[in-house]
């Protein structure tokens, strides 16, 4: 049985798709057979971030409606061969994602994959509900500002009340907080919420802190999941997050501003 992980946030533009791409790539790189599904029907993005937009023939909705088989729609990643992408449909409505249809696809994927990563659309409407419904774990992507924190809180409430695990009274969905676009210098100037502030409000375990970085934007534009930028702090931060997701203990990094001298940077390895 595959582990189903939803990457969600409530708020838009906080880094869900970037995170889905990196986490799925990270899991696959460690040898786990992983599929990442784009639930953002109508606003397809994941294929761009994963650099497979020219290879999309069939999509998620085609599979749900029986117009294509799963094998026809799955795109194998060219960099990591245990990674597959199931792209969203760009021409349909989110209502095409029926509960039964999504369940059928997820069950079928469960038979052969170790991890299913669901990239949720923003908001709390149908598409987002479908993305989180079957989840075992949730990575709640949050930016260090109040509106993002409140939307994350809302999504956490929905995970604990509207997911399949909640409806079936099973163990609750395991929640992880991933703080993205974190800028320690701005936190120190009081322009952003600190990690401690966000942890205190949301009261869920911290999976990782991804520093704000030009690398993230460049990587997205080039269709490279940030985690493959192994020399960058953002790439390493995602690597740490994946390790923690798999149960490893890793110290949190990139949470203080690093405008230090050349030597101290050398010795800290950062």
């Amino acid at each position, binding site marked *: 049985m595959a582990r189903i992980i939803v990457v969600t946030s409530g708020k838009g533009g906080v880094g869900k798709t970037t995170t889905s791409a990196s986490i799925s790539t990270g899991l696959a790189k460690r040898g786990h057979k992983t599929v990442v599904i784009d639930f953002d029907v109508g606003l397809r993005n994941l294929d761009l971030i994963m650099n497979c937009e020219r290879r999309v023939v069939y999509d998620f909705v085609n599979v749900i409606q029986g117009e294509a088989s799963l094998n026809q729609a799955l795109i194998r990643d060219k960099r990591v061969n245990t990674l597959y992408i199931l792209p969203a449909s760009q021409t349909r409505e989110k209502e095409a994602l029926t509960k039964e249809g999504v369940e059928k696809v997820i069950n079928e994927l469960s038979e052969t994959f170790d991890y299913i990563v669901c990239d949720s659309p923003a908001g709390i409407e149908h598409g987002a509900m479908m993305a989180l419904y079957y989840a075992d774990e949730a990575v709640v992507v949050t930016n260090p500002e109040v509106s993002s924190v409140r939307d994350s*809180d*809302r999504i956490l*409430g*929905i995970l604990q*009340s509207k997911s399949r695990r*909640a409806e079936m009274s099973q163990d609750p969905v395991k929640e992880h907080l991933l703080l993205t676009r974190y800028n320690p210098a701005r936190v120190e100037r009081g322009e952003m919420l600190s990690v401690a502030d966000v942890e205190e*409000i949301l009261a869920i375990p911290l999976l990782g802190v991804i520093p704000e970085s030009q690398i993230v934007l460049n990587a997205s534009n080039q269709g490279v999941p940030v985690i493959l930028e192994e020399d960058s702090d953002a790439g390493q931060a995602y690597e740490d997050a994946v390790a923690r997701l798999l149960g490893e203990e890793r110290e949190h990094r990139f949470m203080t501003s690093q405008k230090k001298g050349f030597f101290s940077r050398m010795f800290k390895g950062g």
Partner: protein
Amino acid sequence: MSDTATSGVKQGFQLKSASVSMTALELYYFDDGEFEEVLRDKISQAPGFFKDTPLIISLEKYQGLDSELDFFKIIGTCRRNHIHVIGVRGGNEDQRRLARGAALALLPGSGQRDRTHETDQPAAPEAETAVAQPPSAGAGDPPPARIISQPVRSGQQIHAPDGDLVILAPVQAGAEVLAAGNIHVYGPLRGRALAGIHGAESARIFCQSLEAELVSIAGHYKISEDLQENGWKSAVQIQLRDDLLVVTPLDKA
């Protein structure tokens, strides 16, 4: 708040304004048999809550024909199930005439609210209801207090219709907790807390850190802005004294 008699003349009664939180039945269409079946099903989920409870029929979303709207049948069915229909809310002129014919009180719809009748009870926001079931639901007699150990998140509503509500976690901004009795929050109270919703003026609210959007006891309420001076972000209890909400630090109680 009250129209207390200023003269010394003794009267048999006094009229006082009261705000009572009530259950509304939002009617979409009416079919006699189906109505009773659904009603019984709802009651069976929380028998204690509906026993002898007053009910208003909300017509704001009624889509059926006016001719099908038989208030006498509705009242009879409800009465058989120990629910007392006391009035209707909203509805068009014809529907309200039918309701008056059945001796029901007429309340303004939420869109057509009459300022003079407006109470200080804030309208309950439409939020999805209670997530967590009480631990012993269906195990016979209802627990004296409902105990919640998960955070109450934005958009969630937790309701203790019969007794106290104890929350061992934060109540987040945008969340709402309601109880017939006291509310205890062993964490920060950042959302809304409404104690004594059936009018119990002795109900109190206790919290580890007062950061609430709104607190209310028996319909008397204070919003965040009015809570800043006293006990903000500290452990307090809130009680009703002479129709006023009083905030006291817990270490001085």
